[in-house]
């Protein structure tokens, strides 16, 4: 049975919001998976809190609408408890890079088999326009009316340093490529990180800026860590520079579940072991 991929929930994203593009892309990917005979019952989408996160209400699949910054620990728990699940995180840049940065680094360090999609519009939308960790220096938001006094950090560099085994950057106005990057991320065994540049139609519309600077990574060897670092540094999310899109790094390493598999035992064996532990304490 083909499922209706969209719930009856009313969509409240602003017209022109980059989230539509990500939702369409994901919807197409899911429909494709179903067509290939894969059951969507085994897919879980985990969202944070913010404009992006409404995707949990809109997509008619298993979802966990978590807390701000906490997609990864919840997703990690899901994957550890049931390794057969395909777990996809949708997080905002405030989620992934501010409130939940520690989890992001650790997910990469663990190489837990998840796909992390960061809806990076470089501004807080739902809280009506404050700077995020990837807003450029001097960004004038409601909490920094005179402009920020701090540089953004480069999430790709951060992920390279943290041990992510799939690192990509997409752009919401390059939907076919974005679809390919996400599909590849889902297929990747290990921690897949995709930074998605999207515009915020209400608070940080960067359409023109991105349109004139993005280009596709070609002839880049994604197995070469050094080359990946160099490419990731080309644009630092602050200074004016060409912005490359595509897979920066991809490597196969054992996942957390593979290195630390769970051992299941029967209820009887459990009781027996508990009895033994009481006995050895005598």
């Amino acid at each position, binding site marked *: 049975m083909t499922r209706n991929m969209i719930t009856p929930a009313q969509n409240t994203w602003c017209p022109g919001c980059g989230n539509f593009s990500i939702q369409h892309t994901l919807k197409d990917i899911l429909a494709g998976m179903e067509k290939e005979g894969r059951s969507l019952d085994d897919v879980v989408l985990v969202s944070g809190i913010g404009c992006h996160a409404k995707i*949990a209400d809109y997509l008619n699949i298993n979802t*966990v609408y978590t807390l701000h910054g906490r997609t990864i*620990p919840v*997703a990690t*728990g899901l994957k*550890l408890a049931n390794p057969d699940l395909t777990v996809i995180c949708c997080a905002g840049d405030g989620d992934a890079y501010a409130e939940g940065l520690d989890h992001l680094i650790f997910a990469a360090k663990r190489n837990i088999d998840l796909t992390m999609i960061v809806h990076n519009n470089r501004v807080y939308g739902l809280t009506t326009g404050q700077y995020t960790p990837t807003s450029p220096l001097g960004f004038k938001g409601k909490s920094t009316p005179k402009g920020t006094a701090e540089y953004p950090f480069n999430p790709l560099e951060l992920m390279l340093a943290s041990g992510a085994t799939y690192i990509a950057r997409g752009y919401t106005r390059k939907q076919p490529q974005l679809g390919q990057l996400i599909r590849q991320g889902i297929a990747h065994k290990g921690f897949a990180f995709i930074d998605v540049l999207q515009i915020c139609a209400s608070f940080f519309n960067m359409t023109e800026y991105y349109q004139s600077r993005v280009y596709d990574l070609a002839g880049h060897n994604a197995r070469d860590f050094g080359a990946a670092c160099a490419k990731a540094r080309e644009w630092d999310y602050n200074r004016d520079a060409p912005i490359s899109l595509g897979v920066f790094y991809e490597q196969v390493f054992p996942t957390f579940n593979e290195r630390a598999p769970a051992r299941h*035992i029967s209820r009887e064996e459990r009781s027996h*072991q508990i009895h033994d*532990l009481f006995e050895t304490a005598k």
Partner: protein
Amino acid sequence: MTELSVLVGGKAGDGISNAGAIIAQVFNHMGYFVYMYTDYPSLIRGGHNYALVRAADRPVGACNNHIDYLVALNQETIALHLPECPDCTVVANADLVKSLPRGQAISINSILKDETAPPITGNSAMIGAFAKAAGISWEVVEEVFHRHMQKAAGENLRVAKRAYDMVQTTRPIPAITGTAHSLLSGNEAIGLGLAAGGLDAYIAYPMTPSSTLLHFLAGNAERLGIRVIHPENEIAVILMGLGSAIAGAKTAIGTSGGGFCLMTEGLSFAGMAEIPIVIVVSQRTGPSTGLPTYTGQADLRFVLHAGQGEFPRLVAAPADPGEAYLWSAAAIRLAWKYQIPTFILADKTLSEGSYSVDPDRLTDLPASDPALWDGQGTYRRYLNAPEGISPLAFPGRKNATVKVNSYAHDEDGITTEEASLVAKMADKRARKGEALKGELDRLPCVSTGGRTDAPVALLCWGSAGNACSEVATDLGLRLIRPVVLSPFPDRQFADACTGVKHLIAVEENATGQLVSIVKEHGRNVDDGLFRYDGRPFTPEELRQRVQEVLRS
């Protein structure tokens, strides 16, 4: 009552707590009931450590100030403890104790040299010396070493025997009849109880005094078929725990007050999204970093109220490992039946103390299975069922779309801000609390002891119950101890208080947190005895203070 106490003292890193554990097992194998308290500062090496072992012919769960045998590994132990015990029997390590007013001393170094044994076996010499001074038969020492020394029992026994043969018996321990029990710390009992309750995963970040639960379960993870994870911080601990539970794995997490502070957003998420999770909070002295390795009962109000918004929770505060085992198993079952967070509230005294437990006397608390989705029709995660308990399905279940949500949501799990729906779903969650209360009415939520018809009663909770129980028995008073603190067992508490004219609260906090709770439930407390210096009440001290109150 026949009882005696042994203090083993030395510097941190000397293996004092292991030496105390072996002495506790020696008493255990002689048929005594045992309790061991360890006192140590928050550091790895240096500083003074001691283990206090109390053995008696009836169950004990607290130590007294009185010491019968002093085993001194260093001079500081003599300086600190000898003045406290003018009539105790002393065995000392002659290598480090240069000034010994009385007692017997042996040179560990020369024994090790003669036996060409490594320094790590040195404490066995002190155990051997103590055993002989106390007239304990060599066979008991041998049996305990073989059972409880993981490594090189033979080598340790040779060292112990040397010392045993060098010392005179000066104060023989009375022989009693009894069988050996299991000696368990509170944390070990919690771990075993969780396992018995069906635990699939335990997730924790190290924090004293909860860390030994993490160590115990990690050490036995394969054996018990439990996955044990130590993530980046306590925020990740609870969220990972919730993710694990959403996927259907029975999950528990553990921490102390400071770590629990970080868990409160996750706790509230569990309340709203109706995710079952067991949270073990072992209290230490606060506020803030406080005294990491000392005890306290100051987090009761915190655990009862933590998390924004209103949602039902179970809070059980066991007094001893037996109760900890039973309620930990029940905490899992009740969390899953009602899809709520459930707490085991312990403290350093219970978590790290060792107690005699008779496993044959542990009868499971009855609790029924969780409601699972029957696979019929369209799955609705938050179906507004009569008792508020929506049948569970986990992601991966065929034909179920499971939508879990931290926002106010409808029965399908889709965000809503509609007023009537918000109230309806709040009522649904509240009904689970009422159903839980009904079920708890059939479980022993208030423990009573002492002379149960006495007009004067001691009121306490958690591990303070052990000292209180002794004092109540000795003075002919009633003991009333709520084990469940949320939802508060009004009916059982009122029954326990029938005929009480004078209620004296005993708590290891400064403000009387249980006092204010029972007041909310309509019962006034006449007097309060509080201790908040990080040390547990001793029965001796408590008896004196109760008698002072009764005289005035």
